[in-house]
């Protein structure tokens, strides 16, 4: 065990910090619209080898060798600086890794560069009203007609469907084949007749995701990733990336820091909350869980540096279930610290992602209920841990 990063990485961190002093932008650039500023700075990150590191230069990345420790340093320092690095949107975060792994050369050249530049945006079409945890039962259909796939059916919980240029999604293309073997992974232009998008309001009041209806929508035959009927395997690769995103340890520590900051300001019964023994104990209890997340992540990072992922399969299976629970604990205490101010409802505002006003806390608490469902609900994770992790017998399957 040795938690020092070593001189090579200290130099890397120093240079990175120097680079990150360039954010926020200054001079004329500071007057540009926010999205444009982010695009500019992200571009500089790519040129400097900090952003989209493992995507080859030919596709618009910075073509660096894989290095989990550099990735960690980048995550830490970009997070600290609040600077735009690797985009967490679904296109760059989930589709691009999938295409790099399984896409054709034409698909890589056509889709990856504009996606990384932020010029082509994506939404994910997996879940359907009748297919949530049992995703492979999905019914939205794709039928090959001449040079086009013709799509019918409905997708749901689709983030950014209103603004996305494209969807990557799962469709039943082989109705005669068995459940998992009849699915194809398709790329579909969203702006067309035949696709209708309807907002879904969340319990928080915000409308971040949508229902998408397909009525003889079309996409060219070549827009399939992998072969016909291989869509399920292709999507496993995408889901893997989504889980990594949700399990980001930095996110948990940041949220705990916000909770501590909140507790320093809060009052309980007319006295500072931090003088209350109950509050202090709850904070320390939560810190135990937060440290468990951080150190588990450190184990997984360390194993991936050494190519020993097989030794951490169990914690990898467990991280999503655990960290989404811990996030809820954090925001539940934050909510309690509001006292009766927690009775106030409000609408989501973008600055709530960072600030600690009562409405932001209420909204963050409500939002914290979501990740335990997205990307594989907690009870599905428990099945995976039980069956694959602990070797328990599989659930009895109903006769098909």
């Amino acid at each position: 065990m040795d938690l020092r990063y070593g001189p090579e990485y200290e130099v890397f961190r120093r240079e990175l910090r120097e680079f990150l002093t360039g954010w926020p932008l200054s001079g004329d650039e500071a007057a540009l619209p926010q999205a444009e500023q982010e695009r500019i700075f992200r571009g500089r990150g790519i040129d400097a080898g900090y952003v989209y590191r493992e995507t080859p230069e030919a596709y618009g990345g910075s073509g660096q060798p894989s290095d989990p420790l550099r990735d960690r340093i980048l995550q830490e320092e970009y997070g600290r600086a609040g600077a735009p690095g690797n985009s967490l949107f679904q296109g760059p975060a989930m589709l691009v890794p999938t295409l790099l792994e399984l896409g054709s050369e034409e698909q890589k050249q056509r889709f990856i560069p504009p996606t990384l530049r932020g010029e082509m945006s994506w939404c994910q079409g997996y879940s359907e009203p009748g297919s949530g945890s049992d995703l492979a039962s999905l019914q939205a259909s794709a039928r090959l007609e001449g040079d086009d796939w013709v799509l019918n059916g409905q997708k749901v919980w689709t983030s950014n469907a209103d603004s996305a240029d494209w969807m990557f999604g799962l469709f039943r293309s082989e109705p005669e084949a068995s459940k998992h073997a009849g699915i194809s992974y398709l790329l579909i232009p969203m702006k067309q007749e035949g696709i209708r998008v309807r907002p879904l309001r969340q319990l928080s009041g915000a409308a971040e995701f949508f229902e998408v209806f397909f009525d003889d929508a079309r996409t060219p035959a070549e827009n399939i990733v992998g072969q016909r009927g291989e869509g399920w395997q292709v999507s496993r690769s995408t889901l893997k990336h989504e889980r990594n995103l949700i399990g980001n340890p930095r996110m948990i520590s940041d949220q705990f820091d916000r909770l501590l900051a909140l507790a320093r300001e809060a009052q309980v019964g007319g006295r500072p909350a931090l003088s209350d023994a109950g509050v202090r104990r709850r904070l320390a209890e939560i810190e135990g869980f937060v440290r468990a997340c951080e150190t588990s992540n450190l184990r997984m990072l360390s194993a991936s540096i050494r190519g020993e992922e097989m030794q951490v399969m169990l914690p990898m299976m467990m991280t999503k279930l655990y960290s989404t629970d811990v996030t809820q604990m954090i925001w539940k205490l934050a909510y309690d610290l509001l006292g009766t101010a927690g009775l106030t409802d409000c609408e989501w505002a973008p600055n709530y992602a960072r600030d600690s006003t009562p409405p932001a806390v209420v909204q963050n608490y409500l939002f914290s209920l979501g990740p335990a469902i997205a990307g594989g609900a907690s009870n599905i994770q428990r099945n995976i841990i039980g069956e694959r992790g602990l070797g328990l017998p599989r659930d009895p399957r109903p006769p098909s």
Partner: protein
Amino acid sequence: MHFGLSEEQALLQETLRGFIEAECPPTRLREIFDEGAAHDSALWKGLAEIGLPGLCVPESEGGAGLGALELALCCEELGAGALPGPLLFHGLATLALREGGAAAQRERWLPALASGERVASIALEGVGGSIDDAAGRPALDAAALTGVARHVPFAEVADLFVVALMDGGLAVVERDAQGLVVEAESGIDRTRPLGTLHFDATPAERLETGAEAFDVVRDAALCALAADAFGAAWALVRMTVEYAKTRQQFGRPIAEFQSVKHQLADMATAIELSRGLYWYAAYACDHIKAEASQQAALAKAHIGDQAVEIARQAVELHGGLGFTWECDVQIWFKRALFDRAFLGTPDEHRDRAAALGGY
């Protein structure tokens, strides 16, 4: 950057695991447990043959010169096997002598402790009932110790005690010192009996830098107890997994029921993801002093809590059998209770962690 075990550390765990499997399998453990004779000299001799009593003793005094992390790694195996015996406390006592003893003191006591020829234990708690309550500890006046130390592990067996003092320092008391009366307590964990030490002007020797060593020993002790609880909790998960796979109800193994499967998944998750907590805290004891006290307190509180909750669920999942004396689950349940309560409850250590964490 490497947050994992070295080959030597993994081998240390493997060696101890193999020793426990061979020398103290559940049948032997049950005999010792029922007899209440937790110090088995054959087991101690076997541990000495693989060098474990000298783990934290410097090489110059005949030990392996290892630290809090290696001690904690061994404790994980001790907890997993619920191994009866004083190794954890002996290890902490040697650490106290190493950190707090003058050269002459180290040379005088450590070699016989390293070889396992003599057994040492720790007496860190006075009559105050809290590890931080110095006022309740025995007082050393010149070289005479007076007062009471409670909950001293293997009090009836140890040849040597490292005693925490009212003034914050540490002293060493020999077993046969005049005015020392050892009174057995009725301990919850039959694998680790306790006793009370009564000192009445008992000859004792102050360790040269005992006040500094106290912090080191306390933090290492919290890590060791967390690790023992960690090993015990994983053993309970494994035991319960095996039981659920074989126990049939409604015509199938109960492990096929999602209610059981999910409960087991939660138990395993709660314990496996806290492994890094004790690793990190013990590593901090050895290498990041500024973080050691808070991380050790968090690890002790967190794993102490988790282990007892897992043990409770293990009892529940074993059904009526789980509530019997005959079922081995109770051995580990009580092991986890000891690890949770000894040297302070989760609440106490959360209070400390909050203060140490600056909130």
